[in-house]
């Protein structure tokens, strides 16, 4: 097996709701190796989003250990978490989350700015990433001049820009029609074949099937499903 890049042990996440604690993740274990394409499949309310937040270092677990790229994420400051996100995680959101005032290229440059990449290099890298997702013709277009599929491609280029350890996608086809959704999923497959590790959160079994491995999440517990639907 190749290198372990994500290792979660007994992750518990609980929120305080009024007087009682609500446990959302109940001792989750997950190991991801480099180059995997894994779907986390679950209905709404299963703890999917919390799972994604913790994987994406947007949130820290209540207890348990989380190693990402060999580093313990469990007790890091906001500032350190920001740095880890910048280096390790490439986010892809359901609603693309592009800044409307910026061109496609500027949107892709955004994570590079926060990673302190110098301007010249930023431009080159952003253009390279946009070429990779097939948008070399649309670099200076604003998001509202692009179709939904194109916007999600820009978002993917942005996620790839810092060459992150994990591409973390949250319902990446949720806002797309079926045909474009398919195209985007094929792009994911390509990227995975090029060696990118992808973790995708979804409620849609058909989308989840694009992954090599499916993990089911239900009521805060993780089950390894029948692997390799595809």
């Amino acid at each position: 097996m190749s290198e372990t890049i994500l290792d979660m042990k007994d992750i518990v996440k609980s929120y305080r709701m009024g007087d009682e604690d609500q446990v959302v993740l109940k001792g989750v274990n997950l190991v991801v190796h480099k180059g995997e394409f894994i779907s986390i499949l679950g209905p709404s309310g299963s703890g999917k989003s919390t799972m994604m937040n913790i994987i994406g270092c947007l949130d820290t677990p209540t207890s348990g250990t989380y190693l990402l790229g060999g580093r313990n994420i469990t007790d890091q400051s906001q500032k350190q978490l920001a740095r880890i996100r910048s280096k390790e995680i490439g986010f892809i959101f359901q609603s693309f989350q592009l800044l409307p005032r910026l061109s496609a290229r500027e949107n892709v440059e955004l994570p590079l700015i926060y990673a302190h990449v110098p301007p010249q290099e930023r431009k080159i890298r952003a253009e390279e990433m946009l070429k990779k997702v097939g948008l070399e013709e649309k670099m200076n277009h604003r998001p509202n001049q692009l179709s939904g599929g194109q916007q999600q491609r820009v978002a993917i280029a942005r996620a790839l820009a810092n060459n992150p350890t994990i591409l973390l996608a949250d319902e990446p086809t949720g806002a797309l029609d079926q045909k474009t959704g398919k195209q985007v999923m094929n792009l994911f497959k390509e990227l995975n074949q090029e060696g990118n590790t992808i973790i995708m959160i979804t409620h849609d079994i058909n989308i989840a099937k694009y992954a090599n491995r499916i993990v089911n999440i239900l009521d805060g517990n993780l089950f390894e499903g029948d692997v390799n639907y595809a």
Partner: protein
Amino acid sequence: MLRENIRMSWQNILNNKMRSFLTILGIVIGVTAIIALISIVQGVIDESNKQFVGMGTGRVTVQAFGTPLKQGLSFNDIESLSQIENVTGVSPNLSFNSSVVKDGNVVEDVVIEGKNEVYFKTTEDVISRGRVFNILDMESKNKVVMIDTELSESLFFGRDPMGENIIINGTSYSIVGILNDESSDDIMSMIDSSSAPNGKVIIPYTTAMTMAGIGNIFTIEIIIDDTNFMDQTIDKIESVLNQAFNFKEDSYNLINLDSLLDMMETLQGMMTAMLTGIAAISLLVGGIGIMNMMLVSVTERTTEIGLRKALGAEPGSIQIQFLLESIFLSLLGGIIGAILGLSITYIASDIIGIPFKINYTAIFLGVGFSAAIGIIFGWAPARKASMLNPIDALRSV
């Protein structure tokens, strides 16, 4: 990174031009008010100070009303005043109107002024030609006279008046000097100049006293050497005058331009403080406007902040971006205000008739104030933005 933050902040201000403009309006008005009011007040006061100084500082004017038994100051009093430490000299002022005759030409209503040698020593550019009076002219009550160009033209049109004689009150006087038209008037003659349309002559004051048939002097100017010891010197002058008038109340009046100048300075300080206070209130209101706009902006851009954080923005970076935005807004207001304030000052100076001078203190005050307001009122919203939880921020879509 800072460059990127500056660019992003600036971009955001430009993206909301109308809103940004309305937000900074309060600051613009405040800074305009500070700069225009302070500059104009300063200009007016400087100008009037200059006029007062032109009339002569380092001088004390004494108006002697006298007592029923003693009217005005005697030669002895003047001598005693001259002896006071730190007094350069005493220059009597007396003037009356009379007619002047030359070869049958009569000019009515000419101002006759009596002066002594001290006046010529302490006043510059009294004459344009000829000689001034000396102490011998005083002691011998010489019949010498200086005339101004107006009178010269009335009596000697086209001829040189120097060395000629004129007749005042039946006595012949020899012209020894021509008065300079530009000569700066002293304060007393300005006050007296109510009726002097037909020219002016100066004769030795002793001669003038004889001509007017008076034995005492009613107004004198005491010239002070070192104005740093003004107060002590004035005390001594008062003690001499009190003795001269037997300590009778209201027997004389001291006019001291230096104390008037001091008063003006205090007044200016008070005016500036008051105007700054008023303008500061308007800046405060403007600052609250900026804070309000920044809070709206943070709420509006919650998702953007969340996204930036997810993409690796540190809380500090977000804070700086928003803080810079409010600083830019208020500085922009400050700069526009400074330009407007200076324009208003320029126009007002022209209308009032004072020289336009750029008041750097006011500019520094106005622009500095507005930058401070940007920091103070931008801090809370920027902090709020930096503390936003990226999860909540992203969920709000």
